[in-house]
């Protein structure tokens, strides 16, 4: 069961994980990853006030679905749910959720990490940072490209 949702409203990670295991006896591992909006980055600039996430409606959902299907060919997944929010978020808010289920933990961990790495470089979302001094578009990170590329 693969589910993708692109939404402005918040999500409930525990409820999404429960939905993937309810009524089943074959799931041995659930991995849940939540990405949050944080106030300060490592470089120590002016604190973040808010992030606004822009997305490409239609393609965002289709591209994430393609990534989940690719994960399903690499690992024996029993289920996966990806929820990505758009709109304005403040520090502490949820941005993205990845839940994977499998019989064993190895596949669930690996698939969740693969989905996050690929999502960051392929899902059509763009972050606009609002700081006290200015607003600016977040630049893509080389480390994200490297994280995605290591999966081959």
């Amino acid at each position, binding site marked *: 069961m693969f589910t993708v949702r692109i939404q402005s409203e918040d999500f409930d990670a525990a409820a999404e994980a429960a939905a993937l295991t309810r009524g089943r006896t074959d799931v041995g591992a659930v991995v849940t990853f939540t990405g949050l909006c944080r106030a300060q980055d490592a470089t120590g600039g002016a604190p973040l006030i808010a992030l606004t996430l822009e997305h490409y409606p239609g393609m965002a959902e289709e591209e994430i679905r393609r990534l989940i299907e690719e994960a399903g060919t690499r690992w024996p997944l029993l289920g996966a749910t990806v929820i990505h929010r758009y709109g304005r978020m403040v520090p502490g808010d949820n941005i993205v959720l990845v839940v994977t289920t499998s019989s064993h933990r190895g596949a669930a961990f690996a698939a969740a990490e693969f989905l996050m790495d690929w999502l960051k470089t392929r899902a059509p979302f763009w972050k606009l940072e609002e700081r006290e001094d200015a607003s600016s*578009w977040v630049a893509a990170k080389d480390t994200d490209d490297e994280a995605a590329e290591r999966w081959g």
Partner: protein
Amino acid sequence: MKVLYFAWVRERVGRETEEIAVPEGVTTVADLAAFLKGRGEGYARAFENPRVVRAALDRRHAKPDTPLAGAREVAFFPPMTGG
């Protein structure tokens, strides 16, 4: 052809979407980006470094040499920063 722009490409071009009559000889994503670059000051700034502008054809990632070949929708945008 429907053209969409996102993030700072959208801001520089000054619009979210438009219909473009693709001229003869414009056959690839890179050709279209070069054609758009010549449409005015905002476009010139959006496409000033074509290597950092990404594209999608009919909602799938495309490369500069991908043929436009009958696509209905093309989008131009910066490298993605979701997640």
